């Protein structure tokens, strides 16, 4: 297990290095002059030269990369062109909102997908199965921003149960944090849950047909034990992977839903960075998203070894 862990961490470091090169190169290949853009109409050559020199943009690209990487490793992602504040600070500011939304949405997704997928696998081609299939098809097809707008319309504007937008920190006011989180988490979680339902259904259906399930029944175990201990545990093995991919995707920001709910998350931050050619900020955000994917994948792989003992060797 320890060797497996070390090997996976080692692989992640290599991938991360590759990602840093890719991120750096792509952003430098994109046309557009960030300093010119930052100055806008107040352009004058001396300020321009000074800014370029201060940002190190006149250094050779390789030197720029090494400097950036060295700083990044010590937690310094540079200074945002736009706001003049450290990128790390900007990102850390947004992190709680994004983490809240991503994990909230995944919880909602699993709460939808596991029961719904399992029930439809237990009664394939029944009314329940058809309804579940329809619901998950709808969840996949309906655009999330539309769902978001409808949710706001119904639950905050008409019924007045929940706030329509904004994020409140967990440490500031836990109750308000939860109230603000419900709508965006449900909207995002419904879409992810719809995808996951399909996976739960098909892998539960597969596990139900396996010989070990027949063995469990032949032992005379009560149905709930057969389903819970034998079918579900095996069915969740592939679901763990898909959940991980969904989570990584949510952590890198669900831009449109963030905009609709005025949710100050990383997605919006990255979007602003693109719009303003804020290189340091954009680099930092993209690098962080890559780290999210790697960390989530690593956790998924380790979790995999926990749920499926055949993996860890």
């Amino acid at each position, binding site marked *: 297990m320890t060797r497996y862990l070390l090997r996976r961490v080692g692989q992640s470091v290599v991938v991360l290095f590759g990602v840093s090169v890719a991120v750096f190169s792509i952003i430098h290949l994109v046309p557009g002059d960030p300093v010119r853009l930052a100055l806008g109409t107040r352009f004058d050559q001396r300020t321009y030269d000074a800014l370029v020199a201060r940002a190190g943009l006149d250094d050779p690209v390789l030197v720029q990369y090494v400097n950036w990487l060295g700083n990044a490793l010590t937690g310094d992602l540079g200074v945002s062109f736009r706001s003049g504040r450290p990128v790390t600070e900007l990102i850390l500011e947004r992190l709680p909102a994004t983490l809240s939304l991503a994990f909230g949405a995944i919880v909602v997704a699993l709460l939808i997908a596991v029961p719904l997928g399992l029930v439809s696998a237990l009664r394939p081609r029944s009314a329940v199965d058809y309804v579940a299939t329809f619901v998950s098809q709808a969840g996949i097809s309906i655009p999330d921003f539309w769902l978001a707008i409808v949710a706001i319309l119904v639950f905050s504007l008409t019924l007045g149960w929940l706030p329509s937008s904004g994020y409140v920190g967990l440490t500031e006011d836990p109750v308000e944090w939860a109230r603000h989180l419900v709508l965006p988490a449900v909207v995002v979680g419904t879409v992810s849950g719809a995808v996951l339902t399909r996976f739960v259904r098909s892998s539960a259906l597969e596990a139900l047909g*396996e*010989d*070990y399930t*027949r*063995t*469990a*029944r*032949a*032992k*005379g*175990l*009560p149905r709930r*034990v057969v389903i819970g*201990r*034998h079918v579900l*545990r*095996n069915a969740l*093995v592939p679901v763990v992977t898909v959940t991980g991919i969904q989570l990584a995707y949510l952590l890198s920001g669900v831009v449109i839903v963030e905009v609709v709910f005025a949710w100050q998350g990383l997605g919006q931050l990255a979007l602003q960075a693109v719009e303003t050619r804020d290189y340091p900020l954009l680099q930092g955000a993209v690098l962080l998203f890559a780290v999210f994917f790697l960390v989530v994948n690593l956790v998924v792989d380790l979790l995999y070894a926990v*749920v*499926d*003992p*055949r993996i860890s060797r």
Partner: protein
Amino acid sequence: MAAEPVLAVDDLRVTIATRRGPARVVNGVSWAVAPGETLAVVGESGSGKSVSVLSLLGLVPRPPATVTGRATFQGQDLVALPEEALRKVRGPGIAMVFQDPMTSLNPVLTVGRQLTEGMEVHLGLDRRAATERAAELLDLVGIPSPRERLASYPHHLSGGMRQRVMIAVALSCEPAVLIADEATTALDVTIQAQIVELIAELQRELGMAVVWITHDLGVVAGIADRVAVMYAGRIVEEGAVDDLYADPRHPYTRGLLASLPVLGDRARGGEGRHPADLAVIPGLPPDPVHLPPGCPFHPRCPVRADERCATEEPPLRPVPGARGPAPHRVATFYDLPPEDRR
């Protein structure tokens, strides 16, 4: 058989609804097995032998299957028993060992857990007592260092070891009847012999009835008391193992026996059969959706000595000279002359 049967199956029929129409998989099968006795049910794949025993335990989903007939076990009719009552029979009443030990154990649970869960449910043991007994059971089925093995996962074990675990699982609640459904088919030949011997030994110790389901007459020759040969969901011949092997009366049984390789060197006057001499029964078993009229074997039958073969179903009747409460019986309209086996 002298003793009162512990499990008696009477006119069991299983029909499975398919898209092509109803498949008549088991068509009126009757047999009985007494404590300490071994019955072998022999037939090709698709002869309905597995389905017939699985249906007794409610392990064939209904629907699409419908099951009729009677199966008397400890005064209860298993066919009519509701699921919850039947569940309590599975394990402590009738236990099963399945064909493929590679897939029949749950890959994500430890061997110990798979052994203890049945005992917790049926015997009311707590985890500690069940674990204690699980180690004893592994020892009983010949697994070395049983206590350490409890923490193993199935993938740590070889095929033969896994089948021993399966047997330990089946024995854990001290069943009155053990059904071994092709329990050696997936194993190496040397391991097969060990497993067959192990079950025979445990049977002598524990006095349970054993039903062997197999396609391999050779596997059961040494251990069975009685043999029932199935074809297309029917028993075509049955009798004490010695009678049936010495004097097979049904063309199908003769075909099965002729297709067995026999060890020995014929060139030196031994009784061996050269592989090239192995007989093959031409054709395939009939499609259970479209069973032929008459005897189900007649399209492949080399004898067909009676015109009724193609129109009427031959009943199972005692062979001439057969005696006793469970005589040698065969489902033919005619009596074949004794076989010339060299």
